[in-house]
């Protein structure tokens, strides 16, 4: 198993190198003189020369690429053009929100998706099956941002003053204050990795409130996550449900299911212990592939619910032409996506020992 994981990790290297080249090239492709783009049209020749010197733009492209790699390896993601802050700080600020959202959306999609798919397959060709698949087809076709807006309308306005009312925007109720862990622990001058990790923890409102024992804030944050998570997760839920149904229908026709039934097992055990276990490999594949969709969905949904995450940041950065920020976040998301698919690959081997051998 260990050797299997190492081999998969090594296979990742060329892909990660490719991702790095793509993000590097993307920024180099920006039309126009980077000096004019970054310092403005009226920058003098003198200033431009100093600028090129400072950012090493006079060197050959391969040398620039190697320098980009080496600063990345040292954890330096560059500096924002817009406000001069280290991009690493901005990442630590924005990433936790998006991770929380993606994680909850995935939890929602996986649990309900598998349940719906199993139910649909167990009740094959009944009204339940047809209803579930009509729902799944509509779910797959909905634009995330539209679903978000509709949910906000239903749960914040139509269901106002009922127990189902939910907040339509923001991370926390107005006026809620949750100090940064750097401040609480008096580590405001922390540097490097320590600072990065502390910032990550502080900006994950859920983790931070738990660490500080502020359960009111925790549940408040959780309530704010419900609608965005449903919006982001619904498409994946529908896709997972369809895939689960298909895989279960396949599995239920196999001989081992007939044997299990013949020996008198109750239907529940046949479905969950025998059929589902064998149907899991394709289901896990589709879950891994959905991560990309979930991350994209998070980007669109944050805009709808005004959440301070990666998505809103990328859009702001694009509008402000803040290339180092765009570059860093694109790179980050691609790497996360690749890593999730690595986890999926490894879980195959866990779910189906035959894959480990081949």
């Amino acid at each position, binding site marked *: 198993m260990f050797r299997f994981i190492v081999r998969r990790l090594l296979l990742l290297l*060329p*892909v990660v190198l*490719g*991702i790095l*080249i*793509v*993000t590097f090239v*993307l*920024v180099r*492709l*920006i039309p126009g003189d980077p000096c004019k783009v970054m310092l403005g049209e009226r920058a003098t020749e003198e200033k431009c020369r100093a600028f090129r010197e400072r950012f090493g733009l006079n060197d050959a492209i391969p040398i620039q690429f190697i320098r980009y790699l080496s600063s990345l390896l040292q954890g330096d993601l560059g500096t924002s053009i817009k406000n001069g802050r280290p991009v690493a700080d901005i990442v630590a600020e924005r990433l936790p929100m998006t991770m929380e959202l993606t994680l909850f959306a995935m939890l929602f999609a996986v649990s309900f998706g598998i349940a719906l798919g199993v139910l649909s397959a167990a009740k094959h060709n009944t009204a339940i099956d047809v209803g579930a698949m009509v729902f799944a*087809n*509509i779910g*797959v*076709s*909905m*634009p*995330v*941002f*539209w*679903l978000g*807006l*509709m949910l*906000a*309308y239903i749960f*914040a*306005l139509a269901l106002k003053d009922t127990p189902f009312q939910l907040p339509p925007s923001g991370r926390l109720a107005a006026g809620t204050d949750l100090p940064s862990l750097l401040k609480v622990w008096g580590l405001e001058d922390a540097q490097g990795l320590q600072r990065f990790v502390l910032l990550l923890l502080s900006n994950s409102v859920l983790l931070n409130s738990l660490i500080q024992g502020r359960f009111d804030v925790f549940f408040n944050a959780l309530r704010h996550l419900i609608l965005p998570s449903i919006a982001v997760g619904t498409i994946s839920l529908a896709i997972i449900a369809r895939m689960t149904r298909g895989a279960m229908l396949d599995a239920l026709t196999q001989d081992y299911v007939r044997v299990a039934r013949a020996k008198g097992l109750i239907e529940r055990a046949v479905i969950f212990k025998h059929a589902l276990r064998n149907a899991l490999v394709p289901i896990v594949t589709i879950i891994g592939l959905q*991560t*990309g*969709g979930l*991350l*994209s969905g998070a*980007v*669109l949904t944050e*805009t*709808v619910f005004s959440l301070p995450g990666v998505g809103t940041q*990328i*859009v702001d*950065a*694009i*509008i402000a*032409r803040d*290339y180092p920020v*765009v570059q860093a976040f*694109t790179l980050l*998301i*691609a790497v996360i*996506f*690749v890593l999730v698919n690595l986890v999926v690959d490894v879980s195959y081997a866990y779910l189906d020992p035959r894959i480990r051998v081949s």
Partner: protein
Amino acid sequence: MQSSAHASAFTAQTRLRDQSPLVRTLRRLAGNRSAQVGALIIGALLLVAIFADVIAPYEYDQQIRQPGLRRRSPPCIHLLGCDPQKPQVLMGLDSNFRDLFSRVVYGARLSLQIGFLTTGAAILIGTLLGAIAGYAGGWLDNFIMRLMDVLLAFPSLLLAIAIVSVLGPGLVNTLLAVAFVSIPVYARVVRSSVLSVKEMDYITASRALGASSARILFVRILPNALTPVIVVGTLGIATAILDAAGLSFLGLGAQPPTPEWGLMLGEERNSVFNAPHLVFFPGIAIMLTVLGFNLLGDGLRDALDPRRRA
């Protein structure tokens, strides 16, 4: 011309034997519930798109200032009991006094163009790359497919966003970005299909007869390797429309006053609480279109997949 020769050979064959694969496939398709509903939706949308000038009561950028109509007026349909004194607006007015129904109707034209154009371009380039990779094999195959792997490592919408950030916002750049990010999918599908077709006996026969590589690839292999592309392409149109709408929603795609559904949603998203119709109708339009292509794609897959021919 070659493909039309191929097609006529195909129809001749069809006439010879009534149970030819094409007839069988079409029969299966016609009997497939998903395909029926999907084709119905897309057919209706095509009609709306073609006759948009006739159907839409106003121009998409025409401001309507009439007594009884306010900015963001809710829908007023006379048949449903709206005061006949008031002018009829089927889906209400938007923030700029424009008829939302007319804009949604013109949007059908735009969205279908976006879907067909981007998917067409992506299929063309993807097929070429995949066919070359699959037929040539060796280092060329490796080079092309690793490149495709890298592109697939990015979530498609995010890569499209990054590309638009380089090219600058706008509808044309959005189309380019959305087409570009869908190339790898088609390259992969065509490659694997070419790999299996190229082992067939008739390819060996063609080679023995002295046909050139290009002739073997484009005349003998590709026409027989394109079936999976039909399915993936139909589903791809749905994805392309969704991605383009997403980019426009973020303000990176089509620019005002273009009647693009995603842009219409993005422009009016703050009106959701006081004028929900402005958000509701464009969203329904996107959903129906995407649903149509998804259903047709599912139906095509069932009809073309040999394993499902039970």
